[in-house]
């Protein structure tokens, strides 16, 4: 039986476009949380958004580092433009610790310690091993992997750390086209940053009114919020070392506290789930991917 208390809690990058000030204040609060061990931040979804947060980045990194958090800067998930290539190169060259979310970043970070994010396809232990050889020290696995795959991946490359998304809407797809801008009558090139109007994503329902997906700029996310509170012991057993909480527009410090309480046995998972619902009532909860079924499903403990 693995030691549950060894599971670290990390905060993933904010997927949405928030104002610079809101973004900064969010991380200032995270810096004060005693439950968060590590933070990966930076714009992953759309390079056009970068200027909103860039002015605040140095002070945020400083504050988080000063409060003892391990900080990594995430690279863009979809890199096509020269500007984005240059941005990724700069990040790889300058960031003390970077998280690669595209093959380009993997090339640039080879030979020095780095993290690998959920947008790089790691589906088996052989790939994890290959990435570890190139300098990866922690891999945040993509959302669609079932527990059996996670266990096999960790077993195949056991010398590095593994992170899984334990809370938050899941990144499901990314496109060159911006569905968010399109929904509001704009194109990507003249988007007027309308994705900023929905700090928790834009709902997509079926024609029959079933809640279905969430659009976040060029990214499509799950409508459901992943909640793995019921699954912490098996995750620790299979060698997962970090739980990633992906920011939603809710009290993420409280979310981290619940995960820490359940991890440390101070709260049972059911109570934790009930408390989470009060903190983040906007989305139904799901854990299907981990259990090898449709990602939107909820498999009861």
């Amino acid at each position: 039986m693995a030691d549950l208390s060894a599971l670290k809690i990390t905060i993933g990058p904010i997927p949405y476009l928030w104002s610079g000030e809101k973004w900064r204040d969010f991380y200032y609060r995270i810096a004060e949380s005693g439950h968060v061990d590590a933070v990966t931040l930076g714009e992953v979804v759309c390079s056009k958004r970068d200027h909103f947060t860039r002015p605040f980045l140095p002070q945020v990194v400083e504050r988080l580092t000063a409060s003892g958090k391990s900080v990594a800067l995430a690279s863009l998930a979809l890199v096509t433009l020269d500007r984005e290539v240059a941005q990724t190169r700069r990040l790889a060259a300058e960031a003390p610790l970077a998280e690669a979310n595209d093959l380009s970043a993997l090339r640039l970070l080879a030979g020095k310690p780095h993290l690998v994010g959920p947008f790089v396809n790691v589906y088996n232990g052989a790939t994890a091993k290959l990435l570890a050889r190139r300098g990866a020290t922690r891999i945040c696995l993509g959302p669609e992997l079932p527990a059996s795959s996670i266990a096999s991946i960790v077993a195949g490359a056991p010398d590095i750390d593994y992170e899984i998304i334990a809370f938050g809407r899941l990144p499901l797809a990314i496109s060159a086209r911006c569905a968010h801008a399109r929904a509001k009558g704009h194109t990507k090139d003249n988007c007027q940053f309308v994705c900023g109007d929905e700090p928790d994503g834009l709902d997509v329902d079926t024609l029959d009114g079933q809640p279905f997906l969430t659009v976040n700029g060029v990214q499509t996310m799950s409508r459901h919020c992943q909640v793995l509170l019921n699954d912490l012991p098996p995750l620790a057993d299979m060698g997962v070392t970090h739980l990633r909480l992906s920011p939603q527009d809710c009290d993420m410090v409280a979310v981290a506290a619940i995960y820490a309480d359940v991890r440390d046995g101070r709260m049972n998972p059911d109570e934790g789930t009930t408390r989470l619902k009060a903190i983040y009532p906007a989305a139904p909860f799901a854990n299907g991917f981990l259990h090898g079924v449709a990602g939107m499903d909820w498999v009861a403990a």
Partner: protein
Amino acid sequence: MELICPAGTPAAYREAVEAGADAVYCGFRDETNARNFPGLNFTRDELREAVAHAHSRGVQTYVALNTFMRAGSEDTWYRATDDAVAAGADAVILADMALMDYVADRYPEQRLHVSVQASASNVDAVSLLVESFGAKRLVLPRVLTVAEIANIARQVDCELEVFAFGGLCVMAEGRCSLSSYVTGKSPNMQGVCSPASHVRYREDGPDMVSELGGFTINRFGEGEPAGYPTLCKGRFHIADDDGYAFEDPVSLDVMEHLDALRAAGVTALKIEGRQRGKAYVAQVVSSLRAALLAPKDERPQKLAHLHRLSEGQRTTSGAYDKKWR
């Protein structure tokens, strides 16, 4: 430019060769390729026969092994790769880096192509795969404009292949879990997108409703051209409107950019459609071959009829045109 053509069955393979393919791509009858559909694809024997037939006609065979190895079952992919090499595949088309590593290590002489599913969309990503695994050709994802393709071509040390006609992935390929979010089965892991096992069609008055995993994906009015029940081309309710949130039911056709793609340094044009019938393969391959040989002003006429074979009976040049974004 070479014309790379799809074959889901030996019959379609023969049609592709007959119709003027330079190379035909196909896959085994299992999850090792991204068109793992019921009744489709090749046994080991069928592949050997296809390779021999193609070689006798001066046509190449590429074997798609372009899903990601399921952890714990890697042997299925390694064995399929061994068999493709043994069958005489002129190239293997791969997406999983560990499988690329296997081929580079085990079969250094084997020509390695990188699948679109690997999602290498920029110079550094392409270079990583060329430097690390000796990739000779890379199939670019359908997220780039013609200018961006030219820009990459100038800076990389491998051939580039682009999709010219057929199905259009709206999302960056190899990075899409929409299907598994709804059905538990995905292109990357099971080689299926919006799998038939989860599709239902139902009549509702004059309308035809398509469902995936119990969710309404589209509702087609009487006589309205239909499309596949793929999530990214469904009609949804978004921002107070009902409509195509991501893309209409439509297929890709970038033949109007032919000269620009040639000038950009693109080596090969790929036709999507291993899941389509042999009649489709015959018609599309022969039409594109004719267009490649025709003077520019005669091309549209050679291709005009193809929209009738397309999803929603319409085509688009997708991301190749900047305005699509």
